[in-house]
């Protein structure tokens, strides 16, 4: 055995995390008045095609200059009240968190990633034993190390569709027809 420490197993996030994990400003990764702000949004659907209203998405991405160091301040707390304090309005932390709403819809506001054409997404939900990783590509890249390995149908599930007002649509289908490509690493 090469690795002495056995990993702690994952368990489902369950249905009742909503009073604990989502935070004010969680979806607003971009500084508020930044001119390059984009919206990334979509729906999450289950294997019956029904919207998943109790999923949590986390987004991790490089800064526009390609930096991957991130910065603190994604989930700030107010030391006076102990309540979520939102972001400071100017720092790009690279990390966002957003729950789906009653329609199964989510949206984040961010800046285009630099040095990589995608934002990384971890999806948590009741009924998922592990988080599911996927990527929302906001630029198609014929040389991308992952996209080149996928057949066209599967590949298309990772491409966010550009719409008006700098909004990109990225739906996630957990199961069945049009099932999103989910990733593992290592």
């Amino acid at each position, binding site marked *: *055995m090469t*690795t*002495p*420490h*056995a*990993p*702690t*197993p*994952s*368990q*489902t*996030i*369950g249905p*009742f*995390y*909503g*009073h*604990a994990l989502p935070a004010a400003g969680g979806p607003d990764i971009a500084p508020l008045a930044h001119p390059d702000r984009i919206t990334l949004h979509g729906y999450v659907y*289950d*294997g*019956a095609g029904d919207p*998943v209203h109790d999923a949590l998405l*986390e987004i*991790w*991405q*490089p800064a526009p200059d390609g930096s*991957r160091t*991130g910065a*603190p*301040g994604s*989930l*700030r*707390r107010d*030391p006076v009240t*102990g309540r979520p*304090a939102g972001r400071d309005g100017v720092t790009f932390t690279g*990390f966002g968190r957003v729950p789906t709403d009653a329609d199964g819809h989510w949206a984040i506001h961010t800046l285009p*990633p630099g040095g*990589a054409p*995608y934002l*990384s997404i*971890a999806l948590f939900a009741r*009924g998922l*034993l592990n*988080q*599911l*990783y996927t990527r929302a590509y906001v630029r198609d890249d014929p040389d991308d*190390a992952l996209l080149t*390995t996928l057949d066209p149908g*599967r590949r298309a599930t990772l491409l966010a569709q550009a719409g008006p007002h700098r909004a990109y649509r990225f739906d996630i289908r957990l*199961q*069945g027809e049009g*099932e*999103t*490509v*989910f*990733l*593992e*690493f*290592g």
Partner: protein
Amino acid sequence: MTKPLTTNLTKPPSPPPYRSLKLRTPHGPLVRVRDPEAVELTGPVFGVTDVTPLDGDLTRQHTGDPIGERITVTGRVRDRQGRPVRGQLVELWQTNAAGRYAHRRDQHPAPLDPNFTGCGRCLTDDDGTYAFTTIRPGAYAWRNHDNAWRPAHLHFSFFGTAFTQRLVTQMYFPGDPLLALDPVLHSVTDEVARARLVAAYDHDLSVPEWSLGYRWDVVLDGPSATLFEDGEAR
């Protein structure tokens, strides 16, 4: 008509399956990414603005004391090489002592506690150690199958040094008779791996005339290692 006696009395039958898996588990295989430039090999960072010193004490978030058995839960967060995960965010959420979440969709007929919300967070220290003071959560009924009850548990969220190390899981209490009956705990099919989700009572962590102590150490890896023992998954 009598049923034949089971031949293996030490191995009780597995609990019914976790029902919510059915429409949410992907059918396709996970696509393995081996790109050393993958963004997921880095991850978010947190700092002192993301927590306050009181966030780790769930018993002091309201004007009064919550009802229940006060506990302290602590442990170390490490990677598979044993290196401490330093300065990272740990989040905890749970029911109150009666087994109810402060969440409007939880309508389990148990009382809410006005002095307990059940959410906490802290940063790991230089040793990778986290610590919370809270109250012991209660068991609760759910509708997975007839007479289904979840054992008392704490939900935990951990960030590692890479996005691939992200871990959301649940901690259980030793000696709970409901552990053997829980579809969620048994969604981890390996018995040895399951045992790693059960904390140890540690009398040295108990604070005299104040709280009972539990130790629960955590090792971060990634999702691919969660259902299998070493060697099976990779």
